């Protein structure tokens, strides 16, 4: 698989930055032939992963110096594949299986719906979770774009 293009974004772990990541990644992937549904799927999944990293990875006293790194790749072969990695250097997810259960949330008082991983799993083709205690978490999201009919004119 040939890497066609890449972008790296590093943000301070603040919720206001989530919309900036969405806009940046959207611009990056709209260079491809992509449907609105596919674009919305990717935007929503990224929003979940970046929000999770900001909300759950760091202790309150660590947040001032905490960052989240987002790498996005485009691979082109017979089909276009988009891969996005969302990486933090936080505490790690203690129990990945529980965290992935629909409607499970460790912070119900903040009105988290606990649907983040469900959305990532449903809207992307593949999700990989690499989490190590006190080292951090890397979420990899992969979406294969459907082949469009080429325009005749």
């Amino acid at each position: 698989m040939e890497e066609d293009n890449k972008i790296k974004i590093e943000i301070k772990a603040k919720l206001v930055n989530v919309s900036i990541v969405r806009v940046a990644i959207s611009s990056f992937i709209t260079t491809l032939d992509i449907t609105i549904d596919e674009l919305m799927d990717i935007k929503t999944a990224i929003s979940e992963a970046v929000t999770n990293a900001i909300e759950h990875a760091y202790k309150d006293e660590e947040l001032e110096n905490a960052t989240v790194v987002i790498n996005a790749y485009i691979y082109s072969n017979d089909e276009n594949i988009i891969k996005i990695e969302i990486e933090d250097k936080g505490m790690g997810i203690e129990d990945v299986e529980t965290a992935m259960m629909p409607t499970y949330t460790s912070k119900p008082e903040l009105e988290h719906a606990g649907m983040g991983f469900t959305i990532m799993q449903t809207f992307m083709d593949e999700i990989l979770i690499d989490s190590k205690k006190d080292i951090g978490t890397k979420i990899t999201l992969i979406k294969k774009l459907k082949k469009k009919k080429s325009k005749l004119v």
Partner: protein
Amino acid sequence: MKYNYEDGSLKIDLDEELDMSACRTLRSVIDGYIMRYQPHDFIIDLSKVKFMDSSGIGLLIGRYNLIKFMDAKMTILNPTNSIKRVLELSNISDKITMRCE
């Protein structure tokens, strides 16, 4: 965000991107209006909302839990297709009426 109260009916028109940052501000603003007007009918219009992630589900369920205690009815109005797809992943439509007009 806009709001309108008339004859026991409180309608909120949202136009922001419903992510965690926006929802955190909105929940206290919306709850302020709910507490002030104590409506029988509570309507949230999503027709101008272009983006929503699971934070939006949390916002809607949170308001529903408040409305339910007041014995009032809650309706979600005009979600766009992409927002409907997010809503459908939750069991929110079992609890809250969804209507397009």
